[in-house]
């Protein structure tokens, strides 16, 4: 028996919006510690990792570990039916082939039940081992989103370089080039507007903007985004999900020879 009650139902809606463009079908893993997902995007270049810890739910019951295969497109269709203030409860039986989403309005005058058929997805569990990163940049999430959007109108690859000066996002395309430099800035009114750069070693890596833009779909989840970079490791773009967890995107850096093998 699985029963998860999330008061801030809109969180789940936003989580889904932020991954459904990258992943079509995936297994949600439920254990006593939390509700999680790991999946590659369909081109096998990026990886999404989601964790919602049990403490964040108002009520969390998970009798045995469960893997629930869902089509994220269909799941998103159902969650769109929930109001932004609704309380969402996820229910499933052990070994059942459906999952139920229950939406309660804050005033308790409307209760809706949506039952979705589960899928049986045979895939491997993947994870990126934790590592020490050379540079970590924390910045406002909407700023990052804006930068990615702007750069993608000029080129399709972004070079992110972290130096003593700050962090530089640059691209080049047929029409010209673009460079955006952000400097460390902690003297702001609101802590979420701060730009914090922790640099142990300077790094410079290039990434496909197409994926970066998909990652910024998670902007509504959190005011800040953390970008961790290391040469020879995939970049991690992390958004916190309230106090209860995170959504992390991993993206392999672009290497020139790769052009041939990965069209």
């Amino acid at each position, binding site marked *: 028996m699985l029963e998860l009650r999330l008061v801030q139902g809109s969180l789940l809606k936003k989580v889904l919006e932020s991954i459904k463009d990258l992943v079509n079908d995936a297994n949600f893993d439920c254990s006593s510690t939390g509700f999680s997902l790991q999946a590659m995007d369909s081109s096998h270049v990026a990886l999404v990792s989601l964790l919602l810890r049990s403490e964040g739910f108002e009520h969390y019951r998970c009798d045995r570990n469960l893997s629930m295969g869902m089509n994220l497109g269909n799941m998103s269709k159902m969650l769109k039916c929930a109001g932004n203030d609704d309380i969402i409860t996820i229910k499933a039986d052990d070994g059942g082939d459906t999952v139920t989403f229950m939406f309660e309005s804050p005033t308790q005058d409307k209760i809706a039940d949506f039952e979705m058929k589960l899928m*049986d997805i045979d895939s491997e569990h993947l994870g990126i081992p934790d590592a020490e990163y050379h540079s970590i940049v924390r910045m406002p999430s909407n700023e990052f989103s804006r930068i990615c959007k702007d750069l993608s109108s000029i080129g399709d690859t972004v070079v992110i370089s972290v130096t003593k000066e700050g962090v530089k996002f640059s691209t080049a395309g047929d029409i010209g080039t673009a460079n955006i430099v952000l400097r460390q800035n902690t003297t702001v009114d609101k802590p979420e507007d701060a730009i914090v750069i922790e640099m142990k070693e300077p790094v410079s890596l290039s990434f496909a903007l197409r994926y970066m833009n998909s990652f910024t779909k998670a902007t509504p989840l959190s005011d800040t985004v953390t970008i961790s970079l290391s040469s020879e490791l995939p970049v991690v773009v992390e958004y916190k999900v309230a106090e209860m967890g995170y959504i992390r995107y991993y993206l392999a850096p672009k290497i020139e020879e790769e052009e041939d093998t990965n069209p």
Partner: protein
Amino acid sequence: MNRSGISKKRPPPSNTPPPAGKHRATGDSTPSPAIGTLDDEFMMEEDVFLDETLLYGDEDEESLILRDIEERESRSSAWARPPLSPAYLSNSQSIIFQQLEIDSIIAESHKELLPGSSGQAPIIRMFGVTREGNSVCCFVHGFEPYFYIACPPGMGPDDISNFHQSLEGRMRESNKNAKVPKFVKRIEMVQKRSIMYYQQQKSQTFLKITVALPTMVASCRGILDRGLQIDGLGMKSFQTYESNILFVLRFMVDCDIVGGNWIEVPTGKYKKNARTLSYCQLEFHCLYSDLISHAAEGEYSKMAPFRVLSFDIECAGRKGHFPEAKHDPVIQIANLVTLQGEDHPFVRNVMTLKSCAPIVGVDVMSFETEREVLLAWRDLIRDVDPDIIIGYNICKFDLPYLIERAATLGIEEFPLLGRVKNSRVRVRDSTFSSRQQGIRESKETTIEGRFQFDLIQAIHRDHKLSSYSLNSVSAHFLSEQKEDVHHSIITDLQNGNAETRRRLAVYCLKDAYLPQRLLDKLMFIYNYVEMARVTGVPISFLLARGQSIKVLSQLLRKGKQKNLVLPNAKQSGSEQGTYEGATVLEARTGFYEKPIATLDFASLYPSIMMAYNLCYCTLVTPEDVRKLNLPPEHVTKTPSGETFVKQTLQKGILPEILEELLTARKRAKADLKEAKDPLEKAVLDGRQLALKISANSVYGFTGATVGQLPCLEISSSVTSYGRQMIEQTKKLVEDKFTTLGGYQYNAEVIYGDTDSVMVQFGVSDVEAAMTLGREAAEHISGTFIKPIKLEFEKVYFPYLLINKKRYAGLLWTNPQQFDKMDTKGIETVRRDNCLLVKNLVTESLNKILIDRDVPGAAENVKKTISDLLMNRIDLSLLVITKGLTKTGDDYEVKSAHGELAERMRKRDAATAPNVGDRVPYVIIKAAKGAKAYERSEDPIYVLQNNIPIDPNYYLENQISKPLLRIFEPVLKNASKELLHGSHTRSISITTPSNSGIMKFAKKQLSCVGCKVPISNGTLCASCKGREAELYCKNVSQVAELEEVFGRLWTQCQECQGSLHQDVLCTSRDCPIFYRRMKAQKDMAVARQQLDRWSF
């Protein structure tokens, strides 16, 4: 391919390796890196080989040389043709032979036979074989090229000499270096008639112009076309007649010789020269008027014992390049020589460069230099003296390669392969283009006196296949696979030892053997000889030329009998306009569970031409219609508005040709029924087929606007009658078979196409439908002019009519048992779909039509779709092939196969497909919104890198349309039921081994039982206790996969003909190859899982 990986997983070798010391004793057999791990197994055989070399070693050098000479002599005697009988030697017997090749040369005219003439003259050469198997070369003298022109009005017999002189003068100007005393030999007045248009007068005066050499016909025609100044008549240009006919064909027509028939030259009429010009056993000269041509009947319908040589060569290419004659040596040539009509070859040998271990039943001839190999092959050709040379792709590759290679090595005596002494074989590029076949580029290698028959060309011509590699062609026709050794491996095998070269030799022999098998199986010799006999063209024309020459040859023969001459068609460009084709009645689609009777017009177009007397010579020009004032009862006006006279005034020669063809076919079919001898049967069957094809191509000849003698008035009239008849049949059936007319039900015509009409009579048993069908056919035939005949042949029951040109049904010709399933236009035959679609459609149709089990069919489809989503489908079923017609840059729209070819070229230029190849590919998963051309991938690359295929592409773009077409008439909500049911909710997401993020990601352990991620061990907490069950499942899974792999491996070993050698084959055409690779991979994964259990 990781070879060492494979050998580890292979079932353990059964033979124990011999002691290592023995191995070392062989000395020179250091294992080559290419065969690495396999050496253990070679040793057993190598020892045998060693013993033999030791034996040789005992003898002294002299006896070795003696032995060598003996060997050579015994070979020569085995290769040679039977000796000439004394009767032939003493010239006391008339020579009867079957000719295969006819060509013409220009040489000094024969003084003895033609005492009056001198200078250069055309001489016809005929090559053939006598009944005893002796080769014949016959020089025919005295036949002269000629053509006709219409005699201008006002020109009398007295003007001819004048005309002759001015023509001779003009000819001399334009042919300055010809060595003939006289260009225009004769001009005679003859009474002939043009074949074009109905004419009331019986004949007109024509001038027959005889010239000295065949090439002068064209230049003379040019002069006459442009115009000639004639005294008293002024500048005149002339329409020429029969001036574009090949000299050889002209000769055959005039002497009544057809391709491949028997020729007799009576005793005393032939002269032998002391100095022979050819290598043939019987070489003689005779006059064309002394030839006796035998019609192919009785004793003369048989085949002479031709010698057929089938060969294949292997070349050692450099790494990354396709072999080129400029650089890469010829290392092996395998030969098989068979006597026509016998089952087994009498010569079977392989010539190898460097030593080669013996092969049972094969004469292995090893040489130290490439020069010796090539010369040995030339000796073989000369001694065996084959009449027909066959092989696979020999015209484009093997023959030109040998010639070019010999030129590179400077072996001047090599290219003397023909039957004519001192004549070198030449190679030139040729293009062949025809409306029916498209444009094909090829090389033409002329080997005088030997007929080359390249199986790839013949199969290309007669069969539509998804791949024309020798491998897939033999799989298709012989149900036999061969191993496909990639050309880059060939070099490694050659550089190995005698054993690896033996391996290569076995492979090479197989490549020489398969063309012979295909030739026998598809009865090419019989069918082509019969076709040549029926249409009267030399056999070599059948492969090298299109359809129209065959009809032209028949027209010429018939015209000669009727005193008609054919005008030289003006090549007025391709666009003479088009005309309306056949009609297709509106299809009433659906699934019919009552018998559908099919009424067919037998040979519709030929019979229309016969019934309405449609011909060049019965067509009345609109002008003549007004002028001649023909009585209406003697003319027919066709639905397309043309006027033709009826038989009463003039019988057309096309109808006459057709009549003869069809009666001949009837006779051949009747004889076929009575024939007992299988060879005779083969000849007769080939003949009736040739007759049928020829009858049908007459119509096409009149409609070919770029052809020899197009006449759209005829072809459009034929189709207009065809349309009318289909409509009329529909009306007659629906009017007669009604409840009002006393029948049980109202009949309904549900579909009709070109020459057939499908009728539902409403009765529900097959027998009743057959009776009604017969009645209808008889009734309706009666309303048409003879010989147009509507035949009732078959009943479809049940019948699935999908739309125009697409249907499937069970075909019944007797009421007890259906004959087969018949489909048209359905994906069972299309080439650009993957095999999965073909299989699925076939299975579904079988279930729906034969088992009448619609739910079962739907269930089967669902299961397959589920397998597809779960990645349980063989990759070979998903491969799509498309022909690469141009390089990637030239495609205007990016195409999946073009882009892939381009990408593969960047990866490895050697293995990338070239223009003209068919490119196999699969569609892989990629980022959202990626185009299909970005997602195409080489199947082998996909297998090696574990790249996930995109099941949704296959579901939506390949499977869904053809399946829904079939299922929509029989199943409600077919799309929802089949494509979106619960079976689509189980999917498998495979992890690729090399892509972007996978370089960093780590696979996490998950529970063997329920797939939940765990940190260590094999099972999660909640699955504890199920160990026994899950372990057993795992073990049995591994065992099962091992068995599957073992079987596939053995299959491949059997195919390569050796059970103790590694499998090298990487054939992209072979489904077993893909299955083997997949089984190997699956087995590795399952084993890994098994290893996780640590008890």
